[in-house]
C-alpha cells in the first residue's frame, strides 16, 4: 500500500502541489514578517485573507477578469491593513486583541457578503499553469518547478524581494530599527508611525493577495471560512522562520509539503485514518515551533506601541 507513494508520478505530484500549496502561506507570512519586523503583531491576517479571497472570487466571477480580482483583493487587504495601522498606531490599542477583532470582522463580513451576493458555492476558472518554453519541458524538474501559475512564481519572487529590501536598502534598515528600538529611530529623525503604517498596510495587502491565491488560483471556489486557520499558521511561520524571509519560506514549504503528502495519502486511499492525516501538518507546526522559538529573539519592540518620551 505505502509503496504506492513511491512511484515517480506520485512523488512529482506531491512535490509540485507542495510548492503550489505554499503560495498563500508565503504571501501572508511575508506580509506578516514585514509588519512584525517593524514591531506590529497583526493577528488579523486570517480575516484579511478571507475578505481578500471573497473579493477576488466575486470580482472574477462577475467580470471574468482574474487580474481585476487580484487587484481588488489587494485593495481590500490594504484597507484592512490601514485600519489595523490606525487602531494600533494612532489609537495605540493592544495589538493582539485588535488583531483578533479584525479576524472576526473579516470572518463575519466575508460570510455575510457571500450569503448576500453569491448565495451558493460557485466556481471560476482560475489562473492556469504557464508553459515556459524549454524549462517546463525538463523531465521531473519541469513538472515540479516550472508548471505553476503566475501567483505561485510571484510568491517566491516576493520572498527574495523582501529579503533584499530588509537587508540591502535604507528602507529595510529603518524597518528593522523601528522594530528593535523605536526611540533610537525616532531620535535620528525616522518617523516610526510612517514606517509602521507602511509595513502594516503592505502586510494587509499581501494578506489580501494570499486570499486571492486561494480562491482564484488554487481552489477556484469561495466557501465561508475557507482559510480555516491558514492565516494563523502564517503568523506562526513568521516565528518559526525567526523573522527572516528565506527561513519563513522554508517553514512554509515544510508545512505545505507535509500537507501535500497527507492529501495524496487520502487520494491514494492509504489506510491511515484521515483525521490523523489532516492533523499531521498542524502537529508538525507545533513541534517545529517548540523547537525553534526558544532560540530566536523577536524584534524587541514587537507589540509595543511607540510614544515619544517614554
Amino acid at each position: 500500500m505505502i509503496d504506492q507513494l513511491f512511484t515517480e508520478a506520485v512523488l512529482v505530484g506531491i512535490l509540485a502541489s507542495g510548492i503550489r500549496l505554499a503560495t498563500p502561506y508565503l504571501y501572508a507570512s511575508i506580509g506578516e514578517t514585514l509588519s512584525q519586523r517593524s514591531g506590529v503583531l497583526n493577528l488579523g491576517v486570517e480575516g484579511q485573507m478571507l475578505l481578500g479571497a471573497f473579493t477576488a472570487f466575486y470580482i472574477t466571477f462577475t467580470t471574468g477578469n482574474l487580474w481585476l480580482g487580484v487587484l481588488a483583493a489587494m485593495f481590500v487587504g490594504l484597507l484592512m491593513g490601514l485600519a489595523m495601522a490606525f487602531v494600533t498606531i494612532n489609537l495605540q490599542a493592544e495589538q493582539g486583541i485588535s488583531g483578533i477583532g479584525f479576524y472576526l470582522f473579516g470572518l463575519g463580513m466575508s460570510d455575510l457578503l457571500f450569503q448576500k451576493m453569491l448565495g451558493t458555492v460557485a466556481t471560476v476558472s482560475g489562473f492556469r499553469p504557464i508553459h515556459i518554453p524549454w524549462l517546463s519541458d525538463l523531465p521531473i524538474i519541469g513538472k515540479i518547478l516550472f508548471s505553476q501559475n503566475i501567483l505561485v512564481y510571484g510568491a517566491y519572487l516576493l520572498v527574495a524581494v523582501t529579503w533584499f529590501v530588509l537587508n540591502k536598502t535604507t528602507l529595510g534598515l529603518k524597518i528593522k530599527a523601528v522594530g528593535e528600538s523605536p526611540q533610537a529611530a525616532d531620535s535620528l529623525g525616522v518617523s516610526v508611525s510612517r514606517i509602521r503604517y507602511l509595513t502594516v498596510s503592505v502586510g494587509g495587502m499581501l494578506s489580501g493577495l494570499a486570499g486571492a491565491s486561494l480562491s482564484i488560483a488554487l481552489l477556484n471556489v469561495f466557501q465561508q471560512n475557507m482559510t480555516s486557520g491558514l492565516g494563523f499558521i502564517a503568523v506562526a511561520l513568521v516565528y518559526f522562520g525567526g523573522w527572516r524571509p528565506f527561513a519563513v519560506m522554508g517553514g512554509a514549504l515544510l508545512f505545505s509539503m507535509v500537507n501535500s503528502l497527507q492529501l495524496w495519502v487520502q487520494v491514494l486511499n492509504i489506510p491511515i485514518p484521515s483525521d490523523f492525516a489532516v492533523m499531521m501538518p498542524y502537529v508538525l507546526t507545533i513541534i517545529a515551533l517548540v523547537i525553534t522559538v526558544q532560540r530566536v529573539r523577536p524584534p524587541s519592540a514587537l507589540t509595543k506601541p511607540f510614544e515619544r518620551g517614554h
Partner: protein
Amino acid sequence: MTEKKTLPSGHSQILQMEMHGITKRFPGVVANFKVDFDVRAGEVHALLGENGAGKSTLMKVLYGMYQPDEGQIKLDGTPVTIHSPVDSIKQGIGMIHQHFMLVESLTVAENVALGMPSTRGPLTDLKKVSARIYELAEIYGLRVDPDAYVWQLAVGQQQRVEIIKALYRGAALLILDEPTAVLTPQEVDEFFVTMRQMVTDGHALIFISHKLHEVLDISNRVSVLRDGEMIGTIPTQGATKTQLAEMMVGRPLGEIKIRQQSKTSQTRLVLQDVCSQSDRGTPALKNVSFEVCAGEILGVAGVSGNGQKELAEVITGMRPVTSGKIILDTQDVTGKSPKVLMGRSLSYIPEERMRDGMIKEFTVAENLILREHDQMPFSRRGFLDLKAISEHSEGLIQDYNVKTPSLETTVKSLSGGNIQKLVLAREISRRPHTLIAAQPTRGLDIGATEYVHHRLLEQREAGTATLLISEDLDEIMALSDRIAVIFEGEIMGVVPRDQATAEQIGLLMAGVAETAAK
C-alpha cells in the same frame, strides 16, 4: 564676530545658540520655566542640576523632541523653529542621550547610517559609511569597529558610537546628556580628551552631569537648573564644589562623616566560589568569594553590567547558583527561596525599585506590608486587618519622612526619592541582620541620596552587615569599610577603604588586575 569655519565633521560652525524664556509643561509638572540658556563655539557649557531639575527636558526641546510651550531658540542670532530631530540635525545640532539611542541588533555602521540619505539612493552604502567612521575615529580618537554589532560592545564603546553618529550627521553643537554616568574614571579621562579636541576644532558643547568634579574639570561656564528654573550661570574659573552644590540644592549641605573603625565582629554573609548565569545563559558570576561582617559596609564597585545584578539576585534567592555556597548567619542557604531568606533576617533594596521593590499599582500601605502581609498582626485567619495595616504604615511614613498625599495613593504617582524611602522603610524597619542594597541611590536627587546614605550608615552603627552594590564610585568610596571590585563577574580584589584610591579602584573596574599583590 569671528569668521565661521567648517568643522572636520563637514558642517559649518554654530557660533552662538541661545534659548530664551523656554517653558515646557507636562501634565502636572512644569519641567522648565522661563529658562534662558546659551552656548558658543569653542566652549563647554556645563548644565548642572539634580535629578528631575529639567535638564534633559531643556535639551530635548533644543533637539526638537519636545515642543516648548513658550520661548524661542536662536542660532547665530536668527530665530529658528525646530519641529523634530530632523530639523535639529539639519541645523547641525547633535545629541548624545542619557539612555543610549542605539539599535542593539544592528551593526555600528548600520546605526550610523540609519535615517541618513545614502549615496546609492534606496540602497545602503555601508562601505562608504564605514570609511567615514574610520576618518572620524582617527580625528577624535574614537576607536570602534564599524562591523561589530552594538550588543557586542562595552558601554564605553557604545558611547563612542553615539558620538560618531552625531559627528557623522555633521553636528556642530553637541549636547551630551550625562555621558560620564556609565564610564570608569579612566574612560572619563579619555572621553574628556575627545571633548577637548572637539572644542579646539570649534564645536559648541553642552555637558550635563551631576558630578561636580567633572564639571569643574571640563567646562568653561556652568549653569544650574533647579526645579525647572535657571538659578544662574557662572564662569567655571573660580567656582567651588560647595558653591555649585548649594546652587543645585538651594541650601547648605551636610557632610557625610564616617567612623573609620568599624566593629567587625561576627561574619554574617559568606559567599564561597559562587558561580551563576545571566539571562542569556552566559556565565555572569565566576567563583565569587567574599564575606560581610556585622557592622560593616562592603561596597561592590564596578561598571554597569559586570554581574552586579546577578550578584544581588543570587544572594537574595532570586537566581539559581550553578556552583558554590552562600552562608547566612553560619547556615548554608544556597538555593533557598526568597521567603526563607527573608525569615533569616535578610533585607533587600533592589536595583529596579519600580519593578522588584514595589508594585506600582498598589497603594503606599499595601506596598509597606508586602513582605509581612500574611503574618500577624496584618492578617488574621486569612483576612487583612486594615486598621493594623494603616497604623503600621502611618508610623513608617512619619519615621521615614515619606511625602505622600495619603496611604491610599498608588506608589506610581510618587517621586523616585519617596518611593525609595518606602522601600527603605519596609526593609530596614524589620531590623535585618544582613542588608543587600543594590544601586540604592540611582536616579535620586541629592537630598534623597543624602537621606539614603544617612540611613545606611545608621544601619552600620546598629550592627547590620551591609552589601552595597553601586556603580557610583563616589558613593562606594564615601560609605564602604572595604571595597570589592567586580569585573566580568569576577571579584578583581577587595581593598580596605583607607588604603584605596580612586585610580586603583578605577583600574580594577577596567579589569586590570593588581600587579603588586600584597
